[in-house]
């Protein structure tokens, strides 16, 4: 059975009486245990909305989302999940170890275990030299990295990352990619969103393409390329999105 699952997941952002924006529309997703799954899509396609619904920050208009078979408000399930929000921002008056300790407490991790884990994680994301620096003085890439460390503090089974490589330089991107592969080898399930096609192409085993809240395609890269007669991910991306827009244009009778 899938470890992360959505069933006709729909989110309409209500703006006023009878006015709403489609965030997500009827999305059925299945992510298997131990895989790296990438959600792709242009800006505003519903990637973040989908992740927020899974984690219970937003509530679905209809349909449901489940992680490990549990609904998003399940506290026990969250013990096994790590999350990195997009453009993460943290308590900027704390330094790296203090921030990680704060989150460790929220997971009820024993202080001695937490201390060891914090040292390991700071080493892992190469922030060990900046232990005393408060987050206010971090660069964008450093914030992204401390965010990644924070999302790993509970040694999660499932890692949900919203655009983990935004703001990272090429070396940071490569390091993150290698880290993700290493984490997968440890048996973790990783769900990430991104618009960096090349990143996704290199690490993700299966992908989903979102557009205007709709799930356009999902599957392994090879299978999708074959299905859409695409040469590579970029080609596939463009083809599926154009196909959808044309279809919509026909439906509504608008000239393209």
């Amino acid at each position, binding site marked *: 059975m899938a470890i992360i699952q959505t069933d006709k997941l729909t989110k309409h952002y209500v703006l006023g009486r009878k006015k709403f924006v489609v965030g997500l529309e009827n999305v059925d997703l299945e992510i298997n245990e131990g895989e790296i799954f990438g959600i792709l899509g242009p800006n505003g396609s519903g990637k973040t909305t989908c992740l*927020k619904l899974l*984690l*219970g*920050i*937003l*509530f679905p208009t209809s349909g449901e989302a489940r992680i490990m078979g549990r609904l998003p408000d399940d*506290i*026990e399930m*969250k*013990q096994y*999940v790590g*999350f990195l*929000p997009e*453009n*993460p*921002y*943290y*308590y900027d*008056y704390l330094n790296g170890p203090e921030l990680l300790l*704060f*989150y460790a*407490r*929220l*997971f*009820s991790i024993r202080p001695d275990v937490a201390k060891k884990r914090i040292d390991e994680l700071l080493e892992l994301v190469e922030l060990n030299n900046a232990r005393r620096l408060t987050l206010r003085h971090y660069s964008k890439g450093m914030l992204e990295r401390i965010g990644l460390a*924070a999302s790993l503090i509970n040694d999660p089974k499932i890692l949900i990352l919203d655009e983990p490589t935004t703001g990272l330089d090429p070396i940071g991107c490569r390091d993150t990619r290698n880290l993700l592969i290493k984490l997968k080898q440890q048996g973790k399930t990783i769900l990430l969103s991104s618009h960096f096609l090349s990143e996704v192409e290199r690490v993700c085993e299966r992908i989903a393409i979102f557009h205007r809240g709709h799930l356009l395609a999902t599957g392994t890269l090879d299978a999708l390329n074959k299905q859409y007669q695409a040469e590579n991910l970029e080609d596939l991306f463009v083809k599926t999105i154009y196909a959808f827009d044309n279809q919509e244009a026909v439906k509504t009778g608008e000239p393209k």
Partner: protein
Amino acid sequence: MKKMWTIAVNTFRESMRKKTLYIILIFALIVIGASKLFSFLTAEEELKMIKDVSFSAIEFFGALIAIFASITAISTEIERRTIYTLLTKPIRRSDFVLGKFFGVSLIIFVNFILTTLFFIGLLLFKKSIPDIEVFKTLLLIFFELILIGGITLALGTFTTDAFNIICSFFLYIVGHLTSYGKEMIERTENIVVAGLADMLYTLVPNYENFNIRDKIVVGISVSWGYVGYTILYGILYTCIVLLIALYFFQKREI
């Protein structure tokens, strides 16, 4: 429970970094200034003035801190989106709200203790030992401040900051005018109007109940029964607004 405390401590730490301490400084200056101003009075009258000004200042600046700390407690987490990193952890939304409430209470408490110590120091400096009536007055002020914080926190779970500030200060003023309200209700002949006004009177937090300083300053003592009853009122009212806060925050999308 421990997680709630973690959030409370973090809230407290954060506010200590902000300008809360300046408010305490202003408090000190006003009280010292006032006591200098009245030094032409007889020693006994001067003492009365010091008490009066200090009680009022502890209450007023405490209320300012309670309102602003409660507003920022939740809204900065949302504005800076740090709340995403909290609500995705294994904590209940109720732990978050209650953690915030205890954090704000801690801020109120520390500020209250600091200003009170300053006040008592001033009394001792003027060779007056604070008596039990002074203690009663301060105790009631403290519970009033906690109630003010709770109300603002609850409003913050479903309104905007601007509206919250207006509402909180409006209630602060109206809550202190309740005795006039009661009089007006008694004089009203129209039953419907009187009934509505009576309902409003019951709903509005009766901050004036917590104010015994006018009596204490002129030497009238207040019974422990009244003090206990008023504290109970404060605690009950606070619990009710916290339940309202939990209800709204449970459904809130961020």
